[in-house]
């Protein structure tokens, strides 16, 4: 049973517009959420994170919003650039995983930003 879901396998937006990537989770014990970006043939790289005590975190063009009551988070990219084209993974931690802190990942959303 998926604890972290990214329901959109793909998303296409125009350069300069906003990209919104969504993620839902089921485990209310999660207390930390992250977004990773992955280019083909490379490992994922950390993009932005948010603690469950916050509802928003911003870093340049990237903002993550957390709605705990809805168990939903979203990543906003404004403005979108062609170099943002990649697969984005949502991840959650703290769900009672113990000392090893295994992150639970969504299946990813492939973002394509068209020039």
């Amino acid at each position, binding site marked *: 049973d998926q604890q972290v879901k990214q329901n959109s*396998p793909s998303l296409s937006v125009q350069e300069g517009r906003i990209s919104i990537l969504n993620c839902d989770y089921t485990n209310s014990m999660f207390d*930390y959420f*992250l977004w*990773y970006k*992955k280019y083909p*043939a*490379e*490992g*994922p*790289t*950390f993009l932005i*994170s948010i603690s469950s005590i916050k509802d928003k975190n911003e870093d340049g063009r990237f903002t993550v919003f957390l709605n705990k009551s809805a168990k939903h988070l979203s990543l906003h990219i404004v403005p979108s650039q062609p170099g943002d084209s990649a697969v984005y*993974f949502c*991840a959650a*931690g*703290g769900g009672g995983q113990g*000392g*090893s*802190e*295994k*992150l639970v*990942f*969504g*299946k*990813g959303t492939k973002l394509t930003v068209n020039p």
Partner: protein
Amino acid sequence: DVKVTQSSRYLVKRTGEKVFLECVQDMDHENMFWYRQDPGLGLRLIYFSYDVKMKEKGDIPEGYSVSREKKERFSLILESASTNQTSMYLCASSLPPGQGARGYTFGSGTRLTVV
């Protein structure tokens, strides 16, 4: 500034071969992980280790084993490679909760093709 190093970017092996994938991290992290990434399936955890000589099965351990003789090195072993093990393999490391920044640092990945 490379922190998690996977020994090979691309590998081609024959069915039935024993395959070793090596991962080394220089961040003194206790936790290390092996994932595979397949289209539409996201990141799936194969094995992880939270200390030297300690290992735990992830979600898809069948056909794999691991070795962690030193803190910085975590090896993934395909005992008898099969074509359904053709995939992108990703190594990651992290600190235990409460000991620093949360989340994983990933290696660049190894694209393994079994023919």
